[in-house]
């Protein structure tokens, strides 16, 4: 009996220590969405369950290791205790009930996290190796930054142009894969103003590490202004071309400052004499650039590999392509 009291004390103290430690050491980044708050509440329940069960097993083990070690010179066996069916039933039934309780709580949290607001603002999210694009269909705006108004639910409808990606902003907590062939969705109600980062969470090839995009949560009024100004199409083809460059993933592989990424740099690319993989040379004129965009594998530049998506003729209109070419031209002295 004295052993049971002793071990009970150990378990209680350990539970408190571990539980308080887990809940105060700042294990999660600051939460910035309504859905995230529900998730954090569930995390807190989990930490206390973890603290108690950890203390229970470790408490009994440590106590046994210290108190029930064999005395020097004692070669005899311990008491012959084969088991106890009542105990076995107890530690089957009690965990079973606990598990069902946690499952109910988990289902409840999930329903809150996925709760639909009929007024939600739709944003189309497109992922492709290795860039993000955000489209606001009602305003006709395309952006490489995810702008969200505070305290309004955003319904992100997500598609992938190539392989599986995963949309994750740690501060928003929720995560959802982008799957080729289907549209997946996730709902986020940002509660805190600020700047965050989308980080691709599903391995998607070479530059997966760097498949990031900026997220800005702004007040409702500022959001409306931004949307309106973005909707005004610039008159300058070079400016429009720069947008294409930023929004359709070109910038993930083609630098503007001469540095080598996955693809050749755009700096001074126009008018430059290019050596192709088969040793032939060609001057990078408008025809060459057009061909390189719609059918990239037809003329791989020496020293590079065929890594560029083949479907830009479907993704971009002819006008967008000529804007892009105008932008590339503007980067060259030739």
């Amino acid at each position, binding site marked *: 009996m004295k052993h049971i009291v002793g071990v009970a004390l150990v378990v209680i103290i350990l539970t408190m220590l571990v539980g308080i430690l887990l809940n105060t050491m700042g294990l999660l980044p600051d939460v910035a969405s309504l859905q995230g708050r529900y998730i954090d509440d569930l995390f807190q329940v989990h930490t206390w369950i973890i603290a108690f069960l950890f203390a229970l*097993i470790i408490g009994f083990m440590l106590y046994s290791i210290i108190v029930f070690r064999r005395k020097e010179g004692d070669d005899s066996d311990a008491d012959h205790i084969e088991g106890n069916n009542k105990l076995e039933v107890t530690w089957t039934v009690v965990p079973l009930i606990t598990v069902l309780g946690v499952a109910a709580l988990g289902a409840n949290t999930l329903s809150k996290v996925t709760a639909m607001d009929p007024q939600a603002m739709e944003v189309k999210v497109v992922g492709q190796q290795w860039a993000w694009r955000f489209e606001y269909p009602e305003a006709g705006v395309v952006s490489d930054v995810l702008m969200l108004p505070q305290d309004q639910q955003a319904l992100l409808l997500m598609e992938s142009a190539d392989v599986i990606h995963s949309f994750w902003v740690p501060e928003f907590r929720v995560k959802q894969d982008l799957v080729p062939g289907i549209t997946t969705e996730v709902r986020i109600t940002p509660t805190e103003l600020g700047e965050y980062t989308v980080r691709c969470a599903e391995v998607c090839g070479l530059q997966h590490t760097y498949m990031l995009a900026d997220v800005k949560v702004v007040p409702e009024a500022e959001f409306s202004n931004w949307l309106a100004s973005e909707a005004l199409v610039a008159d300058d083809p070079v400016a429009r071309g720069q947008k294409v460059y930023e929004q359709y993933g070109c910038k993930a592989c083609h630098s503007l400052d001469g540095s080598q990424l996955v693809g050749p740099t755009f700096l001074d690319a126009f008018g430059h004499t290019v050596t192709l993989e088969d040793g032939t040379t060609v001057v990078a004129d408008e025809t060459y650039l057009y061909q390189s965009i719609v059918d990239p594998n037809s003329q791989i530049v020496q020293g590079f590999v065929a890594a560029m998506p083949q479907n830009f003729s479907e993704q971009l209109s002819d006008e967008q392509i000529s804007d892009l070419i105008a932008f590339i031209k503007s980067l060259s002295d030739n």
Partner: protein
Amino acid sequence: MERKKTTLLSYGVVRGLIGQVIGTVVGLALISLLRLVLGMGWNPEPSWIFAMLVGFFGFLIGIGAFSDWLKAARGQEITPHPHDPEEWTGLRRYLSFSVDHKVIGIQYGVWSLFLLTVGGTFALLFRIELASPGLQMFTSTSATSLLGLTGFATAFSLHGIVMIASMLMGVAAMSNYLMPLMIGAQDMAFPRLNALSFWLAVPAGIILLSSVAFGGFDTGWVGYPPLSTRAPLGVQMFYLGIFLNGFSGILGSINIIVTFLTMRAKGMSLLKTPVFAWTAFSTAIIQFTATQLIGLSFVMAMFQRLFGMGFFDPAKGGDVVLFQHLFWFYSHPVVYVFVLTGLGVISEILPVFARKPLFGYKWVALSSLGIALVGFFVWAHHMFTAGMAPYLRVPFMVSTLLVAVPTGIKFFSWIATLWRGKLVFPTPMLFALGAIVIFLLGGLTGPPAGTVATDLYIHDTYFIVGHFHSTMFGGYIFPFIAAIYYWFPKMTGKMYNERMGKIHFWLMFPAFLLMTLGQMEVGLLGMRRRIADYDAALGIGTQQFAITVAGFLIALSVAVLFYNIYFSARYGQKAVANPWRSRSPEFQLPSPVPLHNYDRPIEVVGNPYDYGLPGSTYVQISAPELAAGD
């Protein structure tokens, strides 16, 4: 018969390797000729895959895996109970197509430790890269260079899959070596099949590792399409190697199931069977019924690349998520293959060193079956964010959490076994207790990953990495190491060095805790899986450095283990028959275990774990002088 001189070619493995090289070359020549005749140009992908497949059979022919079956096919007589030829002595038996289950068990063990070393080395490579933010090691900007990001991806992909192969081999090592000994049998039910199961894993493993030579692959060990359809040729070697390796598990598990069900000693009813035999049986059921699914998914992905079949290509009506269902239907239960085996070892070791019966034997034995069965219905918890039908998420959450119930029974029964025991702490006991602590960490971090809402946050982060490294180290690695020390005297006839064993434990245990807790913490703070570089602003640089240091300490501790094995097997003290005063049948035999295990009838007269019951034994071997052999 005249005794031939032993040459290098007397070693089966040498003939096998030569056979694999010849087979690969012949295969390559054959398909090149065929393509030439048909007017098709050189295409490396189908050519190399075909060549590797022929090489695989070349190995098996070379080592003599088919010799007896070919004899039977020609109508010659073969013995139903094969034995190794007498001139196979020493190392030669261990490097040949031996049909002795003890030799095969040790072969599996050595191959497992080899793969463990290879897989661990890959981990050290990418841990150096992750020790600080930015790119340190994999800095080449070339998209195909193994010194660039593709190399990093290849390292983490192969670390995962090679370790899994290693664990499968380790499981087979333990169940092959121990099953017949524990149930009082002379060998496994099908000795030739047993040898084939092991030896086909060797060329399969070589094919898997050859993926490095074919440009590596960047998909992670899961190999999800469509990324895998764009990966270098190395990904096909990964698919092919694991597909072929799967036969090892399927054939091996048939042997375990039949042996367990039909070859137990007189009086050994199912509920008087050692608990490890129960776990080996449970894992064999999983391997026998689930391995086909990963084989299927990998073959489909291979064919998608080879023949343009659109199983997982939405443009051709395929379904990307289907692959994940097929993949996880095996790859989730397979963790129970590792873990159940490990839990079986813990349950064997605790009563011996607590000098007390295993608490609630029947509950512990049957909870293994419970875990194995529930384990079949939880696979989609790996896919909560994958875009599967949303209504599937809650049922899979419930089934996942239910695993906690039979697992809890094991924990509580172990604790009750220790309670009021007379505990001693030699190395195997230290590793068993360490395993419980670590497996507890793995188990307790499961529920946050099991409830969907919290998993939406931690999925694909280092929290998951920490969680499963805890389950694998606690559920398999520590018990496997405990088993090596515990049964070392039975395998070698020598005692291991106790001091080195303790050094091993006290290096590995704290280092692992540091590593896994560090992984969990950086994951919660936002560290994604499978990235080469991370944002310094996350504030996880110190933890990442600590994880890398811990990784190297673990490697060092494994080096201590290897030295101990080598040193003790050569120069160690001669072991007595039963150094642990165990009741288990194998410890009633001399050390090392004689060639045919029990050459006298063995009968079960008591319960396996009745420590503390005066005058009782578990088994009786009819000739008393056998037990007192030394």
